[in-house]
């Protein structure tokens, strides 16, 4: 294994590649993720521990490496996810905005291409997403949600694992700028 094969490397801005996605991918992938997130838990109850919109947000943010693009992507996906739920619109939007911004910012600093790095990044942003979500939900929407570190970490790890597989699937839609 050479140095270039290290999953996470610290590179300069010039060394990090920036990808772009076609419009159908940019729109279609989040929609499909939202659909699956809304549909699969009815068939597969355990699937509710996954957060496909969050994984898509992290992927697009890290692939584009643009914080603005990442935050808007996260805001859009989050607001869309909120629309499907019963809670006030904006909770997921705020949380995914923060995640998109952070993921894109982190992607601009770090080269997150290998599975381990993606797993850890996904786990980390899952927890960030959960923290923001709970904060906003409890603080603003006055929702009563219970947090469990065990479930949270397990869900984070599960999303990380799912994310690693999803990211490799979505890498096929990357376009070099």
């Amino acid at each position, binding site marked *: 294994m050479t140095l270039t094969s290290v999953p996470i490397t610290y590179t300069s801005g010039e060394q990090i590649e920036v990808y772009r996605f076609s419009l159908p991918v940019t729109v279609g992938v989040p929609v499909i993720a939202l659909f699956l997130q809304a549909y699969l838990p009815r068939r597969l109850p355990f699937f509710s521990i996954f957060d496909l919109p969050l994984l898509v947000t992290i992927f697009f943010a890290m692939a584009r490496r643009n914080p*603005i693009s990442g935050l808007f992507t996260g805001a859009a996906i989050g607001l869309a996810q909120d629309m499907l739920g019963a809670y006030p619109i904006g909770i997921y939007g705020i949380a995914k905005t923060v995640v998109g911004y952070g993921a894109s910012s982190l992607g601009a600093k770090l080269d997150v291409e290998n599975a381990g790095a993606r797993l850890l990044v996904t786990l980390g942003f899952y927890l960030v997403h959960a923290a923001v979500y709970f904060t906003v939900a409890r603080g603003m929407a006055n929702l009563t949600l219970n947090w469990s570190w065990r479930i949270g970490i397990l869900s984070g790890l599960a999303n990380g694992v799912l994310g690693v597989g999803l990211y490799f699937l979505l890498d096929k839609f990357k376009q070099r700028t």
Partner: protein
Amino acid sequence: MESFLGRYRNLTILVGVLFLQVLGLAVQVKRADAGDPENTRLIRIWAVDAITPFERGLVWVQTGAGNLWHNYFYLRGVRAENRELKQEIERMRLEQVRLNEDAEQAHRLQKLLGFKEQAIGKPLPAQVIGTSGSDLSQCIYIDKGSDDGIKADMAVITADGIVGKVLHAYPTTSQVLMINDQTSGVGAMLEKSRLQGVLKGTPEGSIVLERVMSDEKVSPGDALISSGGDQIFPKGLPVGTVSQVSPGHENFLNIQVKPAADLSRLEEVLVITEKQEQNLATENNGRVRAADILAERLPSVPDKPPQGSTTGVAASKPGTTTAQAPVKPQGGVASSAKPESVKQTVAVPGDAMANANKSAANVTAVRTVSSQATPITGQATESQTKASPAKAVAPKPSLSAAGLNSGTAKAAGSSNPGQNTALRPKPATPPAKSVQPTSQDDPH
């Protein structure tokens, strides 16, 4: 600014996007409030929470500045207002005192007017405005004068009793000499025993009842009323009560009197501008005068004497007054009498009655003649009461039949000539069977 936004553009946009989403979330979220049964949108709560602190701050600053100005920098106005309020409080206190005084005065006047309705004809309420300022002169000044109809020697009283008399009447004020002045004199009498005396003041300001004989029975606590003899105070007004009785000079009692009216605390008085002797009438209703009793008991000329009886003629010497009434001669008239007239003797006091007892003559009638004796037409003059006792002859049987003695006859003869004491004929009186006039008695 542009460099700041350019440097932190991403972060600025992030904050902007988050703010918009938070704003959108706030628009949707409704929060139940304890005081609001319906949910309130969070955006409204936030808006209120965002705005009200500034408002509270502004109000606090404004109030603080106002308080700072009014409470610290504008103390002159506060002090002036404080002074005004204190003055207002003083005025209110004085007003309260005055109102209390007015209320007390109203009560007193009500009591006074109640008395006014009972006794006095036309009293004039007056306010005591001053005194003489000397212990030697017991005088007061009242706020009514000659312009109000007050004249000198008018009686001044209160509901409790007499006070004094008007000494001088000025146009708007009057000087009242109180009964405890040593120069005053009031006719008074004891209410029970009817003993009369003169009420006078002493140099010490007390009151004594003079001219009461030491053999009279007077005890402390006896009530004194006005006798009316002074022609100032109506009869029957309360004067005071006897407080102390001791032997005095020249067989007179020294009777200390406590005035009925509190002369040292006079405030309102009544000036009697017109006297009304209604008390006399009241008293007369329950009492029978001695003259009336005598008039009822004294014999009179019968309308028709029985046959066979003689009529005695009591005559007096010339010069003595006799009532000669030209009446028709009736049967049994004394032979010495002129047939056309019957001489009427006059009831006389003293020895006349004794002479009458000695006289065995039968008389037709003996009359106590008054100036308006009507049964027998005639006229009596004042000299009737001065008729010589020795000359007057009264028949004994008639007097004895009337049950009178000399004393009662005297009382009858000294009755008030102004009173109508004319005797009415007494048919029931038995006439004397024989009349033997003496030579002395018959002037003829």
